């Protein structure tokens, strides 16, 4: 693990140490091939928390999370037709440059400030979240993990810029893919000898974990076919079309063909990749049907409750949970028995009994979480993120643990490097070079870019360290992202798909939308995911209403 991580840093810094100008630093001199762009796009999106959480999501909730990605291929096609030609023909460095060309400077500044605010804090979270999980499971110092992983990313990102980010993304995606397949194949070796792959899939299916598609239309259900196709398309359009951490990936391509191919390959590969990761989670679930899992997967909170005032109550729940596991295994073997499998009534009967056991298990887990919360009011009772790492650390062979931890760190570093790089690009191109110092030479801007990368890196580390002191900040950051994303998407949608709306109407609409989103946050109980929709819709509708009323400057 240390060897691979060290190699990534050395490789990224060494291969790109001769970066000579700003164009090379921010866009690789537009030299990337489509396959580099595709890998870089995937590596940017695949953060460590995704790699850790997704199998846990399948363990807890089944595979229906895959529907979240159904809009992604559609978004890739739309962006390839619309955004990519626009960005390429205008030869921009950042997405926000386009807003000045289409509208005016104030819209560009608004877009870039909204991005810097949101992505700056998100970069801290990208470092903090995996560091927290790794430190809890492996007993590492949280602050030290944050500082080391953050500093390693800063080194090669600051030295080589986008070129280093893209080159290391290739290696990082390779190790993530190898780690993913290794953990997938290991599950079959770890299952009991008499449980075949088909048996495992049969069990997962019968226990409701292979629910990949749900066509029901229910607004309260977060993951359905409809929410994935409709909501997912909007979300992916926003993320890949307006977020500089992704836009920078395909702006680095040699030409429009390479940019498009990079996005479209992502559109082809992403859903099968998520499906495999979720299927791994479903198989980990089957594995834990034959090996008793911990009642609560976060070992630190479990230890606290076992050493606290409620240790007896918690032990009683653990004992009952253990007894249920024995009953469940017996029923599972009955279900796998040939006669039961072939007889519908017998199979349904066993399934009903298993569902009763699962219901009781859930009740015990809820009680355990209640005790954990009473014991430590600041405890996070969601242990989804700890499921997969518990499986890795406790059941895989030593060499493979190292490989998978390297994959997790690679995923963390790949996202963070892209974020720092895009923050530096926007700081230079949209703020410093545009408004503060327009006439410096290229070397001056190159040095500024490197310093901006280091500065944003330090900011992200500082926020990650602060987050470790104030746990509730994590949720605040997620909410903060939703506070801005809808407004940014609204501005870009108006820019891409309308021709006559003026910069003034869009700017005022965006300010009003942002104010209303913030009002919704403070004074209503609307769930925060809806802020994205509210912000976007208000910008678009209000722009159309205000446009005839407001004085127009000529749009460029």
């Amino acid at each position, binding site marked *: 693990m240390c060897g691979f991580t060290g190699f990534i840093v050395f490789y990224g810094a060494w291969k790109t140490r001769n970066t000579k100008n700003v*164009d090379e630093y921010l866009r690789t001199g*537009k030299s990337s091939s*489509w396959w580099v762009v595709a890998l870089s796009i995937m590596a940017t999106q695949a953060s460590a928390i995704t790699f850790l959480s997704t199998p846990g999501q399948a363990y807890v909730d089944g595979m229906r999370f*895959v529907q979240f990605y*159904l809009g992604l*291929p*559609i978004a*890739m*096609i739309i962006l*390839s*037709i619309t955004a990519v*030609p626009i960005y*390429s*023909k*205008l*030869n*921009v*460095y950042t997405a926000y*440059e386009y807003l000045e*060309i289409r509208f005016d400077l104030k819209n560009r500044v608004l877009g870039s400030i909204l991005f810097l605010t949101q992505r700056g804090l998100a970069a801290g979270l990208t470092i903090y979240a995996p560091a927290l999980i790794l430190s809890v499971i492996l007993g590492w110092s949280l602050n030290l993990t944050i500082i080391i992983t953050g500093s390693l990313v800063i080194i090669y990102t600051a030295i080589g810029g986008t070129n280093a980010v893209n080159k290391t993304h290739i290696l990082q995606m390779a190790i993530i893919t190898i780690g993913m397949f290794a953990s997938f194949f290991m599950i079959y070796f770890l299952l009991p000898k008499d449980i075949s792959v088909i048996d495992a*899939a*049969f069990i*997962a*299916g*019968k226990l*409701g974990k*292979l*629910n*990949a*598609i*749900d*066509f029901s239309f229910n607004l309260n259900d977060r993951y359905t*076919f409809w929410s994935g196709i409709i909501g997912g398309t909007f979300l992916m359009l926003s993320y890949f079309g307006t977020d500089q951490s992704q836009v920078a990936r395909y702006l680095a391509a040699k*030409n*429009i*063909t390479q940019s*498009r*191919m990079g996005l*479209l390959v992502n*559109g*082809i590969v992403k*859903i*099968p990749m998520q*499906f495999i990761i979720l299927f791994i989670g479903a198989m980990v679930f089957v594995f834990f049907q034959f090996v008793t899992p911990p009642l609560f997967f976060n070992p630190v909170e479990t230890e606290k409750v076992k050493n606290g005032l409620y240790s007896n109550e918690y032990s009683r729940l653990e004992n009952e949970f253990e007894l249920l596991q024995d009953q469940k295994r017996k029923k599972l073997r009955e279900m796998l028995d040939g006669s039961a499998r072939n007889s519908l009534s017998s199979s349904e009967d066993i399934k009903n009994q298993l569902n009763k056991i699962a219901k009781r298990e859930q009740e015990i887990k809820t009680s355990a979480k209640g005790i954990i919360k009473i014991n430590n009011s600041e405890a996070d009772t969601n242990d989804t993120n700890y499921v997969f790492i518990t499986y890795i650390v406790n059941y895989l062979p030593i060499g493979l643990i190292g490989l998978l931890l390297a994959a997790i760190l690679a995923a963390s570093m790949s996202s963070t490097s892209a974020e720092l790089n895009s923050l530096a690009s926007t700081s230079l191109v949209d703020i410093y070079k545009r408004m503060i110092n327009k006439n410096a030479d290229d070397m001056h801007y190159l040095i500024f870019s490197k310093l901006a990368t280091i500065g944003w890196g330090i900011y992200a580390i500082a926020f990650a360290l602060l987050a470790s002191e104030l746990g509730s900040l994590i949720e605040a950051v997620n909410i903060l992202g939703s506070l801005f994303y809808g407004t940014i998407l609204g501005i870009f949608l108006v820019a891409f798909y309308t021709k006559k709306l003026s910069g003034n109407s869009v700017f005022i609409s965006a300010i009003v939308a942002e104010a209303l989103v913030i009002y919704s946050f403070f004074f209503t109980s609307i769930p925060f995911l809806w802020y994205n929709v509210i912000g976007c819709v208000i910008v678009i509708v209000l722009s159309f209403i205000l446009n005839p009323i407001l004085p127009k400057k000529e749009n460029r």
Partner: protein
Amino acid sequence: MDENSQNITDDKPPFLGSWNKIYLLVFGELVVLIVLFYLFTKVLS
């Protein structure tokens, strides 16, 4: 924006001959995946 805008040529895609066919491929794969996921859910659940 870079003052010295380079010529960006909208080349043909590396395979299939036209972008529309590539878009159809991506969309077609999505449809096939949805059908497969549906069968996967139905058969195994």
